């Protein structure tokens, strides 16, 4: 039982100040922008909820949101099962465990723009390893800067490359925490591999997988740097995800009001989905 102690707030205070400073002040600024209109020269006028209405009606926002949802759904569908599969097939002990862990963690430790740049170099049609292989050896016409399909596939493969390891690490952590006796009991009970997965491994991984899916959802929904470096949102607008679109609006056109309204809607959406998912996944633990 935890001790009831209001003094605990003093312990939390530094965290509270640091995070609030970084979260609340910018958030208030964004809220402030979202309800005002400016014509430059630091002159602002009250605009009410006008920007929110505009954004919610704008086709541009719908398109970006649609692309974003498609992207996030796709990478979740690929990365989660793939990550689990890799974690399941990884060795549990011995020399190869740290080797696997170190090699698999590498992509997670590369600055995001370097990831974008690396994939750019990797996929250059004439002199990139992948681009050359596809175009010259396999004879597939592959050029990310011209074909939206190629751009999409590349962005997704890049994200799978970049982030599947996070799912692997989490799933693996869940797996190695299962006591040996469970596997022994399952053997004695003549459980098939599928039954072992379904009734032992999956339930034990549920908590870490919830974390993995949440993290991947949040981060992929906010993805900006990697696709921006790789495709710049193109060709056309085909890989312009929400964050990229937002930065275009906010910095490119300096439309602070709509950009702010857009980001609040977008933040609220992320929060809502995360909260729903979290609540459903943890419901029967109470």
């Amino acid at each position: 039982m935890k001790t009831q102690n209001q003094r605990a707030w003093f312990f939390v205070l530094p965290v509270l100040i640091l995070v609030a400073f970084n979260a609340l002040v910018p958030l208030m600024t964004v809220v402030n922008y979202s309800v005002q209109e400016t014509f430059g020269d630091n002159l602002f006028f009250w605009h009410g909820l006008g920007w929110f209405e505009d954004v919610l009606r704008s086709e541009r926002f719908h398109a970006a949101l649609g692309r974003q949802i498609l992207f996030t759904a796709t990478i979740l569908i690929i990365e989660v099962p793939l990550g689990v599969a890799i974690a399941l097939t990884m060795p549990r002990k011995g020399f190869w465990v740290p080797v696997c862990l170190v090699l698999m963690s590498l992509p997670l430790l590369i600055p995001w723009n370097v990831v974008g740049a690396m994939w750019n170099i990797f996929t250059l049609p004439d002199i990139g390893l992948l681009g050359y292989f596809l175009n010259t050896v396999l004879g597939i016409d592959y050029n990310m800067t011209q074909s939206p399909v190629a751009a999409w596939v590349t962005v997704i493969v890049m994200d799978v490359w970049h982030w599947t390891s996070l799912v692997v690490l989490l799933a693996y952590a869940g797996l190695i925490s299962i006591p040996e006796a469970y596997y022994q009991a399952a053997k004695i009970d003549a459980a098939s591999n599928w039954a072992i997965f379904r009734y032992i491994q999956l339930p034990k991984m549920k908590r870490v997988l919830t974390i993995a899916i949440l993290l991947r959802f949040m981060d992929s929904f906010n993805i900006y740097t990697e696709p921006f470096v790789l495709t710049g949102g193109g060709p056309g607008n085909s890989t312009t995800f929400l964050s990229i679109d937002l930065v275009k609006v906010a910095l490119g056109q300096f439309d602070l009001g709509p950009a702010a309204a857009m980001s609040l809607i977008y933040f609220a959406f992320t929060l809502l989905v995360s909260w729903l998912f979290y609540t459903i996944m943890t419901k029967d633990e109470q």
Partner: protein
Amino acid sequence: MARITLDGLRHSYMPEPQGEEDYALKRMDLEWKDGGAYALLGPSGCGKSTLLNIISGLLHPSEGRVLFNDRDVTEEPPDRRNIAQVFQFPVIYDTMTVYDNLAFPLRNRGVPAIQVDARVTEIAEMLEMGDRLRTRAAGLGPDDKQKISMGRGLVRDDVNVIMFDEPLTVIDPAQKWKLRSKLKELHQKIAVTMIYVTHDQTEALTFADQVVVMQEGQVVQIGTPVDLFECPRHTFVGHFIGSPGMNILPCAVEGQRVAFQGVTVPTAGVPDVPSGAAAEIGVRPEFVSLSTEGGIPAIVRKAADIGRHTVVEAMAGDVPVSAVLDGTAPEAGSEVRLRFDPTHTRVYADGWLATRETGA
């Protein structure tokens, strides 16, 4: 149900064991009767879990064979051996109900649903869990979870042997006793061979018909609880079983005369100590009494009242001897004379019993 034979069994966890000390399980030949209740007793690390895992098939022995009713099962995986095992920590399938947990081993073997239902209901009644079949197993207490893991073994009517690997470790003391009597009761009802691994002598002695005492990978004695108490074949057994354990006293042997602290001590049987071996007398505190004359002089160091008896610790020279006495105990510091009951006093050489029984 089966008779279990261990034939020339030996096991090492090392790929290429060099000497005897590399073996976690020293060479053993054993035969366990069908329907018996056996306990494997020994301190942690004595190899009892290794032996258990070899019988269940979770471990493949380095040498030797395991036979169930003369059928060699050494090469068979656990699920083909028709055994059940209850582990130290309750292993249950968290997401399933009690019913599904019990039905799991049957469903995996493709048993028709009607039979599954009949069997599960029957076993649940036996375990007194019939009213909780629809509850999620994850929410149950550790004692009920252990009952379910046992039940998963019992549902199979072809089960050869049920093994328990220290099953009461996580159970509350109050529940321990209940669960243990439940086990005993089940054994009497269905007469399946049961092997119970523990380091707790009370658990072993109350559960088993036959107790197998192990030390350092070796079986030192197999016998009924009474055998182990009255006639330990090894000083380890004498010391490990009983509270306080057997007195192990250094002695001098000349021909058939055994002397402790210069006093001749009559023993059961004829001592047969090979020359050069370290000889010791073993006598349980229960068979040490005080006498007014004769016997071994000693000074009482302390006396502890343990309810119906008093445990007296006395120094015979520089050797401590314990005695369990009825009635009032002598005060600390007083001089007493100790007498050993000759029928329960034995001579051991290098730890092993070294008497030839006479007459009897």
